[in-house]
């Protein structure tokens, strides 16, 4: 199955090059093809029970990687379809063509780097790919060239780069921990590190883990280093926002999980769990509070992303394996739901020309298909059945209940409820009610609707009946993350 990995490596890069040089139409087609192909190629990997390697071990895909690969490639496919419909010709053909080239080349490059991040073998290459995602996405955030976009892009690149500097420090410290076992001059491959981890020096591994959580946490959106997130996600073009929220945060979480794996084997599960719990609670609390006072639709969804990242971190802090299963399922469901939510926000932006919640009303009437789909997505984000997030949060909470003290679970439930209230309130105020008369009813573009339908379908599938192979995959991945018996 090594060919699958090599295909994944090639597809995004080729599409990026084509989008940059070829006429826009060809670029659009290539991007959609690349997205769908990436998703299609990652499907057979779901059923594999053993890790797949390629390129002499430099690429490696095990169960954990496949879960995140699904999250990335699913959104790659959907976003590429959405982006085709998102572009509107405008009056200036030349400028529109240039914008389209830049946007699509950037999208392809961005998705390529995210895919690479989950399939490369080793902490060093992981860091390199995440750094590439940062630089590409920073340029994409700034692509709209408005004041807000410039501010958001600058904040993003500054904070994320400082965070990645800390993460590089973490990589070096982990490498140093390994020199006691492997001597000098070894590759930071995962199997090697996991095998040698029990012999690493505990204090050095602890330092490395904390640095990694803080460093990659800036990319994941953990409080208190999340300050770039609401700005960047709301000021970026919608396809980019969807990818940032749905996939990039997940990839950053993946990096933290790799460090988690090694740390659990080196110092035991207590320390990493406490660290993640602290950050998770802070993120959830802050997001729940801020959700209540948003005026901008995309910013609302950005804070919702912070909330869900907090839930992921808290879920990892529970000892029961079922909680980890819930966490991984949550990653997939969040990708689907958040992507769809942003697609909906983008549709409204295209239709009504504003993201301001106080000025949008009667959305269901204005966009007869996208409106209800957006409502479904928001309900999904609030963990209502039959969405996938209901199932995943259920698993996380039941995992937490088996912990000796259920204080954390209680806090989790309260904060999630608070956050849902905020989301539901704003969703209903924008979607329901009478449509203003000056708005023409009807969808702007079929492509955007198709993308949203795909997202909702994925979400409901995960909630109602996840395919057997997928469940087994998630269980295998959870086993990788659990404490060794």
């Amino acid at each position, binding site marked *: 199955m090594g060919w699958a990995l090599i295909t994944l490596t090639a597809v995004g890069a080729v599409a990026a090059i084509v989008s940059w040089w070829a006429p826009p139409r060809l670029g659009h087609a290539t991007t959609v093809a690349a997205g769908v192909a990436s998703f299609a190629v990652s499907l057979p990997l779901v059923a594999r029970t053993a890790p797949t390697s390629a390129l002499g071990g430099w690429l490696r895909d095990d169960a954990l990687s496949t879960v995140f690969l699904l999250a990335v490639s699913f959104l790659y496919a959907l976003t590429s379809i959405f982006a085709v419909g998102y572009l509107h010709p405008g009056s200036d053909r030349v400028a529109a063509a240039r914008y389209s080239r830049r946007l699509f080349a950037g999208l392809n490059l961005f998705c390529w780097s995210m895919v690479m991040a989950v399939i490369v073998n080793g902490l060093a290459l992981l860091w*390199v790919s995440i750094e590439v995602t940062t630089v590409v996405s*920073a340029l994409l955030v700034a692509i709209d060239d408005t004041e807000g976009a*410039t501010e958001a892009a*600058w904040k993003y*690149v500054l904070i994320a780069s400082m965070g990645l500097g800390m993460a*590089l420090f973490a990589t*070096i410290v982990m490498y140093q921990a390994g020199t006691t076992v492997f001597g000098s001059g070894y590759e930071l491959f995962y199997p090697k590190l996991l095998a040698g981890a029990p012999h690493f020096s505990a204090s050095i591994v602890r330092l490395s883990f904390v640095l990694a959580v803080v460093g990659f946490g800036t990319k994941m959106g953990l409080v208190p280093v999340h300050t770039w997130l609401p700005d960047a996600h709301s000021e970026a073009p919608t396809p980019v926002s969807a990818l940032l929220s749905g996939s990039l945060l997940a990839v950053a979480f993946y990096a933290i999980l790799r460090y988690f794996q090694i740390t659990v084997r080196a110092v035991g599960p207590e320390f990493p769990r406490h660290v993640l719990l602290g950050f998770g609670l802070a993120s959830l609390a802050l997001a729940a509070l801020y959700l209540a006072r*948003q005026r901008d639709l995309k910013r609302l969804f950005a804070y919702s992303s912070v909330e869900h990242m907090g839930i992921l971190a808290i879920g990892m802090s529970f000892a029961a394996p079922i909680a980890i299963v819930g966490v991984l399922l949550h990653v997939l469901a969040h990708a689907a739901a958040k992507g769809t939510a942003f697609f909906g926000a983008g549709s409204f932006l295209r239709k009504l020309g504003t993201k301001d919640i106080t000025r949008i009303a009667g959305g269901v009437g204005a966009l007869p298909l996208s409106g209800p789909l957006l409502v479904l997505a928001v309900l999904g984000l609030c963990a209502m059945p039959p969405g996938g997030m209901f199932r995943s949060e259920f698993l996380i909470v039941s995992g937490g209940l088996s912990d000796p003290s259920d204080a954390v679970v209680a806090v989790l439930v309260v904060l999630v409820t608070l956050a849902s209230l905020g989301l539901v309130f704003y969703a209903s105020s924008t979607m329901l009610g009478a449509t203003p008369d000056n708005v023409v009813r009807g969808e702007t573009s079929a492509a955007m609707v198709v993308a949203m339908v795909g997202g909702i379908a994925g979400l409901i599938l995960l909630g109602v009946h996840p395919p057997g192979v997928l469940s087994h995959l998630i269980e295998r991945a959870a086993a990788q993350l659990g404490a060794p018996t």
Partner: protein
Amino acid sequence: MNAVLVAATSTVAVPSTFDGVAESLTVVILLSEFAMLRAPLSRSQIRLYSFQSLVVSILAAYIAAAKGLPDLYAIAALSLSLKAVVVPVVVLRLLRDARVELVASNRASVTSMTLMAIALAVFAIFVIGGLPVHSSSLPTTAFGLSAAVVLVSFVLVALRSDVVSQAVGFFSLENGVSVASLVVASGLPLIVEVAFFFDLLVAVVVFGVLMRVHHNRTDTLSTEALDQLKG
């Protein structure tokens, strides 16, 4: 009294010459980080960064010569050419185009910033310098000092309100991490180090692009205006 003298000279635990020189170079790197806190002109900050990168290259070359690690010569050369020459030239050119001289006013006075930075450096040196990091290439002190450089660069980014200072703060953070990587140098595979470098270069390019975009948009290099997005 002479007995005291004799006793003093015999209990002196002196680090070896190599250790002493390497640590002194690392201290110079930390001091240049502190000097950036004080520099009033954007030009001076860039030049200080260029000087800091030069000292990092000299340190790498010194370790290569003293410990016989030829890989490090390549690192030193890359570091010199990229960080001490290319990046400062690019940023200085941007400054010339922007026709901006002075660094925007700090959010705290220089003395307060220095004291805060001293406190952070103390924290870093004690907490991280106290870890059992044993390396054959650099003494443990250098590890703590590089962590201090990283933390002081955070002060530079947080308490300065213009784009150039923040960018220079980020670049000097990378310098600190480079010194830390020199501590474990006798091993990180060369290809990985080169990958780090080129990644850094790309990040620098992005910084440059965004600085230019910011300047075109707001006609200033201050981040005072970047406070629209709140809440």
